[in-house]
């Protein structure tokens, strides 16, 4: 019998939902700070570097998510150093690291005999989320949430005005490094769910929708979280019923939500003017 919640009967779907929701929580959490600092491009760059990490894992025969995490943390720290030392060339350094990541990924994929598996890392794959992924995503996601709770106001200060945070004597360097590490872990964990190509969108689109209607910073976080979880769950369910790559369905759900929020806001403003 086909019921509305039929998908819950499948273990692979339960795992996908668990992994998806964990990623759906941490992606907008780091995304809010990343977007407000106008550093979204870092998410984009790191996702390409993470692909190189995946390719390295496939090439060497390691679990690709491990190598993706390690490679993206290294790249993130390099980006942070370049960003600090060559302020005027911050964008150029991102472009270089992105190009190097993608180039390396292409070479490793073509050199690897297991290159067929790369498809699922590009677009995500629900059926491939295994227990091993869950055991990794769950604790790391909890650590990321704990770090954000702990340094909430530090990250907030950095996002508001990084220059001022330096001058105010805050531990800016340490906060930046911690931040870059959690961003890179988030990117690497999101690979299984949305694939490397769409991670940056998962990080930014729900946040973009949240910022539209937020009345405070805290509400921006809650709204982004809400939109993100909505996109992830709708996307995964769609992906299950129509046998599509979850990366695409999740991001399209996010785009639809963003468009609805934008139109809703416009209508609301028009309505207010009438009165």
């Amino acid at each position, binding site marked *: 019998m086909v019921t509305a919640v039929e998908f819950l009967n499948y273990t692979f779907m339960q795992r996908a939902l668990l992994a998806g929701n964990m990623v759906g929580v941490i992606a907008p959490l780091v995304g809010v700070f990343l977007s407000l600092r106008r550093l979204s491009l870092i998410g984009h760059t790191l996702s390409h570097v993470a692909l190189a990490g995946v390719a390295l894992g496939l090439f060497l025969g390691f679990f690709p998510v491990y190598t993706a995490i390690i490679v993206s943390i290294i790249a993130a720290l390099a980006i942070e150093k370049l960003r600090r030392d060559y302020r005027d060339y911050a964008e150029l350094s991102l472009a270089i690291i992105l190009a190097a990541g993608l180039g390396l990924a292409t070479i490793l994929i073509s050199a690897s005999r297991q290159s067929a598996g790369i498809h699922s890392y590009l677009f995500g794959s629900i059926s491939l989320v295994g227990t091993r992924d869950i055991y990794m995503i769950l604790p790391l996601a909890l650590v990321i949430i704990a770090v954000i709770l702990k340094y909430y*106001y530090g990250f907030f*200060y950095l996002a508001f005005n990084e*220059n001022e945070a330096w*001058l105010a004597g*805050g531990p800016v360097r340490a906060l930046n490094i911690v931040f870059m590490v959690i961003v890179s872990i988030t990117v690497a964990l999101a690979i299984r769910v949305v694939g490397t190509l769409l991670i940056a969108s998962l990080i930014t689109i729900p946040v973009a929708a949240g910022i539209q209607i937020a009345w405070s910073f805290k509400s921006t976080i809650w709204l982004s979280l809400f939109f993100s979880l909505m996109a992830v769950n709708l996307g995964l369910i769609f992906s299950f019923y129509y046998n599509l790559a979850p990366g695409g369905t999740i991001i399209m759900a996010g785009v639809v939500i963003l468009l609805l929020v934008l139109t809703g806001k416009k209508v609301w403003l028009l309505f207010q003017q009438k009165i």
Partner: protein
Amino acid sequence: MSFLKVEGVSFAYRKEQALNQVSLELKQGDFAAFIGPNGSGKSTLLKLILGYLKPTRGRIMLKGQPVEDIMDWSRVGYISQQVKDFNQSFPATVREIVGSNLYSKMGMIKFLNQELEKKICRSLELVEMDGFINRKIGNLSSGQQQRIFIARLMVNDPELILLDEPLAGIDIRAQDDFYRIIANINQELNKTVIMVSHDIQVISKHANKIVCFEDGRAYPHCSQEFSYDDYIHELRRTNLRIIPRHDH
């Protein structure tokens, strides 16, 4: 004992000498005005007092302690010249902005509790902005924003307050409000204030010490012996680069 003592401080950014043998002493409760042409070293001295820059020579003591040893940053409140360079669409309320300065005191998951909330409200009352606690920072006028930034630094109850051109681009009435608030903080709460301003005529009426900067040197005066007209006359005579714009 003097509250703040700057002893023979020199500082250079790479090759460019920004401060040259500057000495200065302030008592607790002083209101010092830093005046002088663009590029004369006012902001640099503030950053040195803050401990953000290290002097190449000389030393700076706050209550007998070298400033670089100060770990408790909330002792010194600072508003930089670039304070307004933030993303004006940043979705944060006044409460969150003022509260953000309390973050060093906040542990895990311990967000704003009642006690901290009270501090925020008291700080906002001090700058006469208590009805604005839930407003978005970007929706306030720049004079109002400036007062919120004062509230943000006051929330930590600092001993020394450094203000780098807080009145740039602020209208006369808002300036009067600002000086009233600063006078209150300075006199009622007995906080030591250092403020940089190019509106020499106005600030020289409010401050009790005037420090004239000139090509990396600083000449302290007390306000009684300072004459605005003589100062302007001297500036023009020595043909310095920048001359204040009000002609009287």
